[in-house]
């Protein structure tokens, strides 16, 4: 799994590529937390365009980030998810606390 970070005002954009499972989540979780706490960010926005696979570990990863962002009054969102990832997101019910957007533009408009 590869992670790249971008900044857009008060939003940290986390671009994930590759496979999201329990193993890769363990590897990147602390890194994402560090990137988020380093800047003066409010929201966390995941770009899932390059996600090739995700199991329920990805739901856990998002749940944990919702907790971190909530401490700073921020929200977590994601965009560019594939239909397969979107299916898992709705199955899990996490869409009630993680906002799912079609694209970056829509996401940034809603979050800022």
């Amino acid at each position: 799994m590869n992670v790249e970070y971008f900044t857009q005002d008060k939003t940290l954009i986390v671009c994930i590529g590759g496979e999201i499972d329990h193993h890769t989540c363990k590897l990147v979780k602390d890194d994402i937390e560090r990137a988020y706490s380093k800047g003066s960010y409010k929201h966390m926005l995941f770009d899932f365009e390059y996600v090739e696979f995700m199991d329920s570990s990805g739901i856990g990863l998002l749940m944990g980030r919702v907790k971190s962002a909530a401490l700073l009054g921020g929200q977590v969102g994601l965009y560019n998810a594939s239909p397969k990832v979107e299916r898992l997101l709705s199955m899990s019910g996490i869409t009630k606390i993680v906002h799912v957007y079609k694209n970056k533009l829509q996401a940034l408009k809603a979050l800022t």
Partner: protein
Amino acid sequence: MLKKNEMEIQFASQSVNEGLARTAVSAFFSQLDPTVETLYDIKMAVSEAVTNCIIHAYEGNGEGKITIKCAYEDDTISVEIIDQGKGIADVEEAMTALYTTSDDEDRAGLGFTVMQSMMDEVFVESKVGEGTSVKMKKSLGN
């Protein structure tokens, strides 16, 4: 002609092997020429089952053995994930959505729910102190 084949693999209960398990199972069932979607569903189910073995059965110690038996007969596939870990005291409770015993706050408790959604049948047999077997079946209906 009846299509019939089987495969058995075994690996250490290390999280780095989750990807290996998905790839191996997917390569085996590719022989049936399933759709990309079907293969993805099987990979999801396998990933969840193997992750359960690593986190719960062997409690992250990385020293256990996980066995995967794959087979198909015509268009019905079966995957069995077996561990000799600590076992599940209450299988029904463990299979409840959002139920988790994990201390890690980033675990969603959705493993069995995903397995049941991706596959047609999921059988779980477990004995405390002896291990767990998760047997899943799916008809490819080609």
